């Protein structure tokens, strides 16, 4: 896929190839979440373009092929929901507003992938933070996506949940899926990352080998030559201009 960005983001362009696992790194406020949310059309883009599987952002995008794991804060409402119900909602898409007949089995299987099938009927509010995160990942996995986009999936998550996620990610990679992960550091997932971009103040300051290979120097906060000229106020996030996923 390719991004070309502008205003919280400045000229961030990138293409994610099929089967590639991309880490989107950077400090708080660098525009990582903004980038993925704009790519998914959750935030409106002021300029630029996004293509997912060769289709411009809009109704015609094959949303059923895309799994999104938002930051955990967005989960929850005023009424308890069971883990299975939350995961089942991942089976709905633009062409299917009723769950398929095998929804229950598929939801439980996705929870099993994340190692929490035994909690399927429990209210999500009763689960730990790491378990809640695993439910959200299962919700994205249940549709067997070709592109998985995760926003800080392992931030503040216990070791067992991190391990469950790493295993699931390995299975996804082996199946040929493309993955984009927003994260602070590659950490326990380092061996699974093919490529990393680093954002700082909305600019792409690194694109290539994951920075763990180079130590901490590729991370913002260190002196680094920025390959892009900022075309706006520093720290004012702009939106991605161009994002493509190859089908």
């Amino acid at each position, binding site marked *: 896929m390719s991004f070309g960005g502008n205003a919280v983001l400045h000229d961030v362009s990138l293409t994610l190839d099929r089967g590639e696992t991309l880490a989107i790194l950077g400090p708080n406020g660098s525009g990582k979440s903004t980038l993925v949310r704009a790519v998914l059309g959750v935030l409106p883009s002021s300029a630029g373009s996004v293509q997912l599987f060769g289709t411009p952002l809009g109704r015609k995008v094959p949303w059923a092929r895309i799994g*999104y794991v938002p930051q955990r804060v967005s989960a929850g*409402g005023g009424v308890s929901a069971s883990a299975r119900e939350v995961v089942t909602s991942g089976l709905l898409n633009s062409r299917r507003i009723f769950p398929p007949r095998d929804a229950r089995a598929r939801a439980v299987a996705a929870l099993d992938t994340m190692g929490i099938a035994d909690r399927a*009927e429990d209210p999500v509010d009763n689960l730990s933070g790491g378990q809640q995160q695993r439910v959200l990942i299962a919700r994205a996995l249940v549709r067997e996506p070709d592109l998985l986009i995760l926003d800080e999936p392992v931030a503040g998550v216990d070791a067992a949940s991190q391990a469950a996620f790493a295993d699931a990610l390995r299975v996804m990679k082996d199946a040929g899926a493309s993955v984009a992960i927003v994260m602070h550091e590659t950490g326990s997932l380092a061996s699974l990352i093919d490529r990393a971009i680093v954002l700082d103040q909305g600019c792409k300051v690194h694109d290539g080998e994951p920075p763990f290979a180079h130590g901490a120097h590729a991370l913002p906060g260190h002196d680094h030559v920025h390959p892009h000229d900022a075309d706006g106020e520093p720290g004012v996030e702009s939106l991605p201009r161009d994002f493509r996923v190859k089908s």
Partner: protein
Amino acid sequence: MIDMLMDPFMQRALIVAGVVGLTGPVIGTYLVQRRMSLLGDGIGHVALAGVAAGWLAGSAANLADRSAWAVPGAIVFATIGALTIENIRSRGKVAADVIMAILFYGGIAGGVLLMGLAGGTGANLLGYLFGSISTVSSADVTVTVALGLAVLIVGLGLRPALFSVSHDNEFARTSGIPVHLLNVAVAIGAALTITVAMRVVGLLLVSGLMIVPVAIAQLFAKSFASTMNIAMGIGALVCLTGLSLTYFYDMQPGALIIVLAIGLYAFAGLVRTLGTLVTR
């Protein structure tokens, strides 16, 4: 008891009360999930203006029964009100709650004034504000059952999709689910439910019938679906029980139904607290 069931007035009233008892909590569950429990109250206020506008139009048209257009008026106003609120909500405007307050109190004040102009009495007004189930006609039963069924079909049939939209709007949008359309469906469902329930508990108490059964169900249910199912059962139970009691005791049915529901909530809360103390 047999006398009550043989009485055609009570038969009609029981049918309407049962339908309203089942329908209210369905929409109520979605409202509680969205943390918009008081929405029903606000739409009820707006619906009063619709009732009065219906009366006024009925008087102007010299209808034999000036109240004939009250329910259609309530449906139109409640729907417009619900869609306006949905529109404000989805845009996430900062002043949304102030705009809603203006809409709500404008509705009730406008309703009272219009009702006066239409020649309605205070008693007419009270009937809409607190319910008037004893005057249900066969035509009312037909309208109530038809609208109630429509809300049940949409609210239960689309439950997985409506759950997804209410639970995590952002995720639903990235799934390609028609979020806006489903939000509009909930708003219209709320407007219809309120209009239907107006007859039983009245516009000022309608929100109680939508929300309190859900609050009771939440004490015990582990999932969204079971919360809604239990709430529907409780809604029907309190409506039928409350109405039946007024056949034997001279009490106001709408108020009795809500008091029963709140009493059940207090009792259920006590049972649950004792239950957790025992298991400790």
